[in-house]
């Protein structure tokens, strides 16, 4: 993929060869069940039973966790996770199931955890032996994350936690959770402390997990209630009162702009990924709307092309961000990533419904539904993407403030 241009180190070149060789023999077969579009939507044990061994195999081969130090179960390489990701995506491997752990918990523990925690937790994250979830949002703390109220109170060498977390993906499968708690009510940001807490082993003994039903009718995320959950002080990350800055490490990795490249098998190639605007052309060729072929409707054509262009522009920006001289501020493109990816995907699925015309009313269980009702499902789900992990509105604040230097909203 990068035969020309940016020079790769000898280690990277050799590693890419190795990845290709390994992947030529070791990709998993087709899944026995239809997988959800994204790993955070995994809801059944059958899905996990297919995906967990895949991540474990990739870890054993060194493709998952390539850049993590060997002492923490990683490959001890430099700049190689990106290579592994590219190669896995090139051959269309399934995604890794432990996404919260790989994308958020592991880099946070690596940057803020004690040596003991790093040795204890990171290897089992990479191998998928332990699955993780994230306890940030609360019913009254969404975009205004620093207002979380779940309280951790000191009790000798332990902490006692009470409160409620919400929108918690993968909680029903999780052994552990990263959690942002309040430890001081008199100050806002400085009153927060970051912990890791056990989930699975405390179900019914201080932890309760209740599935929530999404707008689509599917489950996929949960509420987590913490009642007098007692954990040792060694599960604290960084100093008391320093939780906000630890949370920033988590969030910057969640949004794909952190120093550690997240191991990501990615499922399919970028061009096949859900929300690909080019797919609309085939859809329009097969669809009739208002009694006429959709591909011959000049307004539909114009809007399809407009989206195709925007998506192409977004991909070219990702290419441009690494070229010195064509970016004044790398944050400028990096921080647009999540916002643009999700908004374009939303518009693509909205336009798909218009292309399908009357048939777009048919949902997944209808035998006449075009594409098995995937587009209405994707459109409904797209709002999860523009709300979760920083709403589009919060991300525009961040871009305006951190990149353009406009006055802070708060």
């Amino acid at each position, binding site marked *: 993929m990068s035969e*020309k241009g940016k020079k790769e180190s000898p280690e990277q070149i050799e590693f890419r060869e190795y990845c290709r060789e390994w992947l030529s023999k070791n990709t998993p077969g087709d899944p026995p069940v239809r997988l959800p579009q994204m790993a955070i939507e995994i809801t059944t044990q059958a899905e996990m039973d297919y995906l967990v061994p895949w991540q474990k195999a990739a870890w054993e081969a060194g493709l998952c966790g390539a850049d993590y130090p060997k002492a923490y179960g990683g490959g001890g390489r430099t700049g190689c996770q990106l290579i592994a990701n590219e190669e896995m995506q090139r051959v269309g491997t399934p995604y890794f199931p432990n996404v919260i752990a790989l994308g958020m918990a592991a880099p946070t523990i690596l940057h803020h955890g004690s040596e003991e925690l790093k040795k204890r937790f990171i290897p089992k994250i990479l191998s998928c032996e332990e699955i993780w979830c994230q306890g940030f949002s609360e019913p009254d703390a969404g975009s205004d994350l620093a207002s979380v109220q779940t309280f951790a109170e000191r009790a000798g060498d332990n902490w006692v936690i009470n409160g409620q977390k919400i929108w918690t993906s993968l909680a029903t499968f999780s052994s552990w959770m990263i959690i942002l708690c309040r430890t001081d009510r008199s100050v806002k940001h400085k009153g927060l402390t970051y912990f890791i807490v056990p989930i699975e082993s405390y179900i019914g003994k201080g932890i309760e997990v209740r599935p929530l039903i999404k707008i689509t009718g599917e489950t996929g995320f949960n509420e987590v209630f913490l009642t007098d959950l007692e954990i040792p002080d060694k599960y604290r990350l960084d100093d008391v009162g320093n939780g906000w800055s630890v949370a920033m490490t988590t969030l910057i990795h969640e949004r794909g702009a952190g120093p550690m490249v997240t191991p990501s098998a990615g499922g399919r190639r970028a061009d096949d990924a859900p929300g690909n605007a080019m797919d609309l052309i085939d859809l329009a060729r097969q669809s009739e709307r208002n009694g006429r072929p959709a591909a011959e409707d000049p307004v539909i054509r114009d809007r399809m092309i407009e989206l195709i262009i925007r998506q192409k*522009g977004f991909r*070219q920006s990702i290419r*441009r961000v690494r070229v010195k001289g*064509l970016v004044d501020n790398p944050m400028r493109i990096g921080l647009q990533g999540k916002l643009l990816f999700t908004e374009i995907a939303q518009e693509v699925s909205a336009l798909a419904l218009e292309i399908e015309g009357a048939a777009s009313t048919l949902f997944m269980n209808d035998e006449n539904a075009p594409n098995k009702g995937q587009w209405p499902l994707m459109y409904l789900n797209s709002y999860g993407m523009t709300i979760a992990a920083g709403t589009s509105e919060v991300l*525009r604040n961040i871009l305006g403030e951190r990149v*353009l230097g406009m006055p802070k909203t708060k």
Partner: protein
Amino acid sequence: MTQPKDFGFGVEEQLLQTEARKFFKKQLDELTLMELVGGNSDPHRDSECLWDEKMWEQMADLGWTTMAVPEAFGGTGMSGVAVASFIEETGRVALPSPLMATVNSSYVLSACGTDEADSVLKEIAGDKTAGLAITNQKGSWCSMDTDVSAVVTEDKATLNGMAWFVQDARKVDLFLVKAESEAGIGLYAVSADAPGVTILPDSIVDLTRDQARVNFEGVAIGADKIVAAPGKGNLALDAAEPAILTMISADMCGAAEWQLQTTVAYAKTRMQFERPIGFFQAVKHPVVNMMIMIDCARSLVFNAACAIDHEPEQAKAAAHMAKAAASDMAAFCSGRSVQYHGGMGFTWECFVHLFFKRQIHNQVLFGDAAYHRAELAEMLIGPLVAGG
């Protein structure tokens, strides 16, 4: 062929960009530009052609006016990405000059591939300027359309008719004229002061350009000035189209970046309701959207420029994308830049209108956004059946 990941934008290109930015910052700040082109606010003023010829001479000395002329013909022969990046810098200062006209002409001449075209390229390398007289009264961008006719005999050609919307017509030494004869569309190099050539200046909105109709009345030229023979001219224009679209889009990205930075600076300092107006999300978020649209267009510009250099079979689609994105982006950014300057933005003395008007001109020149999307739809989806 494949494109290099880094667009082929290396050390040399970066050096040129830095040098250009420094040069134009020093030579043409906003006040200087205003003094140069904004002296007469009368909407009924006579058509003017205002530009700094001394600066142009300096640019020529630096080799910047021949950057699209191949080295073989005496030019500086720079890559597409280098030219795009340089033109972006000229857009950033809304430079009035025959640069774009001359660069476009150079690309068309290179696409002709004839000895006659090569000798005109040598003239450009010798510091002649050139412009394209290729558009008809209907404003068609199709390479087959023209209101100029040619009668071609063995040793000469005679041109009659009018070319419309000719860019920087009073700044250039020669025109490349698109004319139709029985054998098809040809391209003819005509000196701007040749007998029978009349330049009829348009009165235009943009203060940083001049535009004209150019009338040809029995203009006789030698066979050595037929740069593309009848039937070949449209092919040369089609081949050069990606470069022409890419370069104007680059100009638009530069101008829009000025609008963004200027608007941000104003939003940080202008106080209302005891706060800088940039505090309010009704201002902050659309300003962020300006940045997002600029970045999208800019990435597409460098993708198209790189395609011209490395993947010519993809250049046409890439250039349609760049111009479509740039035109929409320019419309949005221009509108917001005036709106967020409030009452001041509505006055002649505020600099934003200089860029606003240049962008209005750029948006339609060589086809607007909807036109290029329709062209791309033809390529990607197939022809639209008339009548449905």
